[in-house]
């Protein structure tokens, strides 16, 4: 187990370093996310009250779209020079690779959210009526739900003919329950309805179940040719 943790850490550090040097994923993701925010604000032009009602939905749709860009990038990095083969011939556990990729994506998407959330606040004149700290909990749990499935299906799409296209087709339907939970929880907090308390529980259960399934099946997916 210690080697799992160690290799996960090493892999995560390597991915963060690669991203820090190339900034491929973050640049593309943040620019794309920013575009979505601008387009949404042109498309809807809400009043302050309406904004509270719809922002929960908009913000997560924007994050979901932008996150897909990042997830496709992470595996693309492993395909360049076929570095993935070096991992596969080594005795390191496949799940360490999966965890380091998922954690790396988690960090990237959290950074994206930290950059984009203020944009939403500015463009939509948001004022949160409920307890704002709960938004952080929802963001963490929700982001993990997106990222763990996204990382898994991005790896699965690698084994198909049309990689980048396949990911959203599979990811969006599977993520739907998590998206509903995130949107509802966020809207409840923004409007101060207060019934958000049980949504994080749903998200946590979803995270737990899907992380387990991903870890059980990742090795099989990695080993297909």
């Amino acid at each position, binding site marked *: 187990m210690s080697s799992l943790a160690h290799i996960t850490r090493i892999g995560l550090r390597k991915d963060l370093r690669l991203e820090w040097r190339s900034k491929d994923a973050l640049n593309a993701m943040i620019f794309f996310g920013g575009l979505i925010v601008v387009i949404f604000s042109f498309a809807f032009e809400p009043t302050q009250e309406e904004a509270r009602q719809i922002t929960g939905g908009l913000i997560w749709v924007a994050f979901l779209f932008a996150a897909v860009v990042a997830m496709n990038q992470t595996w693309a990095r492993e395909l360049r020079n076929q570095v993935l083969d070096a991992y596969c011939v080594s005795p390191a556990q496949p799940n360490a690779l999966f965890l380091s990729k998922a954690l790396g994506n988690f960090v990237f998407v959290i950074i994206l959210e930290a950059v984009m959330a203020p944009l939403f606040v500015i463009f939509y004149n948001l004022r949160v009526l409920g307890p704002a700290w709960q938004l952080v909990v929802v963001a963490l749990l929700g982001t993990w739900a997106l990222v763990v499935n996204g990382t898994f299906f991005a790896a699965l799409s690698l084994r198909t003919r049309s990689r980048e296209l396949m990911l959203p087709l599979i990811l969006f339907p599977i993520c739907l*329950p*998590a998206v509903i939970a995130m949107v509802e929880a966020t809207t409840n907090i923004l409007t101060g309805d207060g019934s958000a308390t049980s949504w994080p529980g749903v998200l946590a259960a979803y995270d737990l179940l899907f992380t387990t399934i991903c870890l059980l099946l990742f090795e099989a997916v990695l080993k297909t*040719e």
Partner: protein
Amino acid sequence: MPEPQLQSRNTKLFTVFAAFTFVLMSYGMYEALIGAPTERTMGAAQRIFYIHVPSAWVAGMCFGLNFLASLVFLFRRNQPLARRADALAVSAAEVGVVCCTVMLITGPIWARKAWGVWWAWDLRLTTALLLWLIYLAYLMLRRFSSSGNAPLLSAVLAVFAFADVPFVWFAIRFRDYRGNHPKPVFGNGPNQGLHPAILKAFLINLAAFTAFGILLLIVRYTLERARQAMADRRLATALGESSGRAAVAGRELQEVR
């Protein structure tokens, strides 16, 4: 080696079953359109229910079957059984998508008449739509991956689909949307005000659709097995031509049977 007798018996059985299904379906349609009395409050629109509910049932059956076959595939990956499981999984997914499509078309037609809207984001509707989307993705995934990879990748997706359904159900129920979809009228008390003639028509249609679903499954499964056998045979001849390893080729073909 093929046993002609067995094969002809299978064919005979299949013909009998197909004929039986045809008769049952015809009778079911007669009952649904003419035989059963017109319902008092909803009128003729209610008759769509004889198609809608049975196809929903067959779709559910197929998706469940797909999940079980996928599990068998994942656990018995390198055994001959795995190829049968994969053939069953793909057949069930395709028949399931077809039935789910029928359900998703007939539902809104009825809803327009009964509720005044085509669609409502209610518990059953959303879950059905999501399942339909996931299984479309499943079929697309199969199309976009090489024939060597498709069985494993799609079996993996089937596991995710299965894990997803309770969450969708729960999430939508939790959202406190008051569902418009009628609750199942069976199970709560004896027949709960369902007219015996309506019940009879419904049960006949349920049986007919189930038989039809099984018939489609058999045809599709046989086709898939034949496709697998043909791929093997093509390979075996290619190998045999080059190195004269007819024995191996023969063994492979036998395994397929």
